[in-house]
């Protein structure tokens, strides 16, 4: 299987006035054609940063120290800006975390989808409108024509998220970065959204890098997974293997600390603080090492 996305030894630091904070410390991962890979970590693990680095949407004070990000064999970091922008939204799409702030509040839903389609696919206004309607039908929106005429605040949160999913798949991308797309949703809506993402992925044949902190979501939608902590990959493999036979103590601890509706309370075991501390001290040791190696 050829890799759609190959991230190798990526180092990213955020500059805060004079000092740098490392957020990715040599992270590597691959996503094959049509593969759904979960990128799992807790807050501060760097999982969103990795997704943003792929999209070239890192914050202005973030600097890529070293490493490569290859998309379909081409280096995204070295690529000239116009060329990269032409890929974004068309070949690489994003399903963002927050459906509330990711749509333009003063433009109708329809005009936002039409603008995207016309920009990337050079469709006529009529064709774009037709395509937008089909897309909303694909994400199970019942009255697509009416919804196209509405403003984002006039539709529910779950529906806004479905509109964003439709937009992500609109140009048949080969890679979709899903950045915690169901975190703000109720469980019943979350399940519907996951079902839709899976259905659209199959129909459009995209690979997905699914960023989440929820091991349950990974278990249900991702075939492979990568566990990130302090900007380092601690474990990766087939989801079924990692969840049943986790090799890294951190993965084991996360699983033991996840409350389960199907198990009694006694099964819950919090992550030992000593484990977290040892992982961070290892990260700091790596920071000192790379600081000394730097000229």
């Amino acid at each position, binding site marked *: 299987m050829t890799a759609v996305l190959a991230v190798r030894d990526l180092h990213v630091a955020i500059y805060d006035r004079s000092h740098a904070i490392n957020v990715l410390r040599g992270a590597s991962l691959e996503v094959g054609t049509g593969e759904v890979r979960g990128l799992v970590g*807790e*807050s501060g693990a760097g999982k969103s940063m990795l997704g943003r680095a792929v999209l070239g949407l890192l914050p202005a004070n973030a600097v890529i120290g070293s490493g490569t990000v290859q998309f379909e064999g081409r280096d995204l970091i070295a690529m000239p800006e116009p060329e990269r922008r032409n890929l974004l939204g068309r070949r690489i799409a994003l399903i963002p975390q927050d459906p509330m702030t990711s749509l333009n509040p003063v433009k109708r839903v329809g005009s936002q989808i039409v603008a995207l389609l016309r920009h990337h696919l050079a469709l006529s206004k009529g064709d774009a409108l037709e395509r937008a309607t089909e897309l909303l039908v694909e994400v*199970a*929106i*019942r*009255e697509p024509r*009416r*919804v196209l005429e*509405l403003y984002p605040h*006039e*539709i*529910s*949160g*779950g*529906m806004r998220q479905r509109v964003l999913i439709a937009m992500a798949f609109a140009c048949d991308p080969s890679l979709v970065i899903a950045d915690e797309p169901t975190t703000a949703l*109720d*469980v*019943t*809506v*979350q*399940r*519907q959204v*996951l*079902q*839709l993402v*899976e*259905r659209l992925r199959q129909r459009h044949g995209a690979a997905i890098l699914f960023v989440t*902190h*929820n*091991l*349950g*979501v*990974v*278990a*249900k*939608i991702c075939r492979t997974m990568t566990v990130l902590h302090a900007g380092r990959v601690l474990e990766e493999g087939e*989801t*079924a293997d990692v*969840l*049943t036979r986790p090799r890294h103590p951190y993965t084991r*601890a*996360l*699983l033991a*600390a*996840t*409350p*389960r*509706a*199907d*198990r*009694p*309370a006694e099964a*819950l*075991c*919090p*992550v030992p603080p000593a484990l*977290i501390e040892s992982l961070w001290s290892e990260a700091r040791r790596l920071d000192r090492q790379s600081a000394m190696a730097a000229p």
Partner: protein
Amino acid sequence: MSEILLRTESLNFAYPERAGLFRRTSLRDVVKRVDLAVPRGSVLGLVGESGSGKTTLGRLLVRLLKPTSGRLQFDGVEIGRLGEAEMRPLRARIQMIFQDPQSSLNPRLRLGTTLTRPLQVYGRLKGWPDQRDRAAALLDLVGLPTGFIDRYPHELSGGQRQRAGIARALALEPDFIVADEIVSGLDVSTQAHILLLLRELRARLGLTLVFISHDLSVVRVLCDDVAILHHGEVVEYGPVARIFSAPQHAYTRELLSAIPLPDVEPGWLDDTGPNVTSLQQGSAA
């Protein structure tokens, strides 16, 4: 039979709502005919999705809101209609812990001041050394270093802030606490620590708790009983063991089956039957 500390009978709450500029205001029911009986020393989980009325119900139970109708009894006293002055002595016995400790702790006050403010308000402090001692004891109770007395909220991690929120609620040694989604913003590794802390405090201090959450898995760890709320009504209510092993109401079953357990389960996403069709009915808000 254990003594019932908090009891509601047919408790209702409605918000006035204006349908249009010139229309008459109408009432929108958000809590409907709720009957609860919370035994002293027990933990009740209130579970529902957004808009189910769980937070409104929690605010009624601590009397931050006044019920529209129905009965609300705390320790045998009807408190539903009491005015502020009559509520005041009871307020010390009824506390609330909020979802977001970031916004419910005053950013300008050191933790020592915040934690002992309730004691000061009720005139239970005997001067400066007493304040330091009480604050240190509270920090110790929730597993924070006593050196945190002089820290500001922004110097703490999310889990530490939530511990501070719990400590403040414990300051007046209340009988009854409502905790509203207090672990939902936390990472898994922090969440489990907070859940176990609450379990330990409950055993040690004999607290009676109402634990509000959208997450049934979390409720199972801590609660004795669960009430499932849907559109302001309690659709199912009973002991945790029974609700999880043999849910009676269709909505409870739907909630349970929608939780993604961390097990690979082929077919979980194929189930397009009831799920995708029910979503087509609930289109525009």
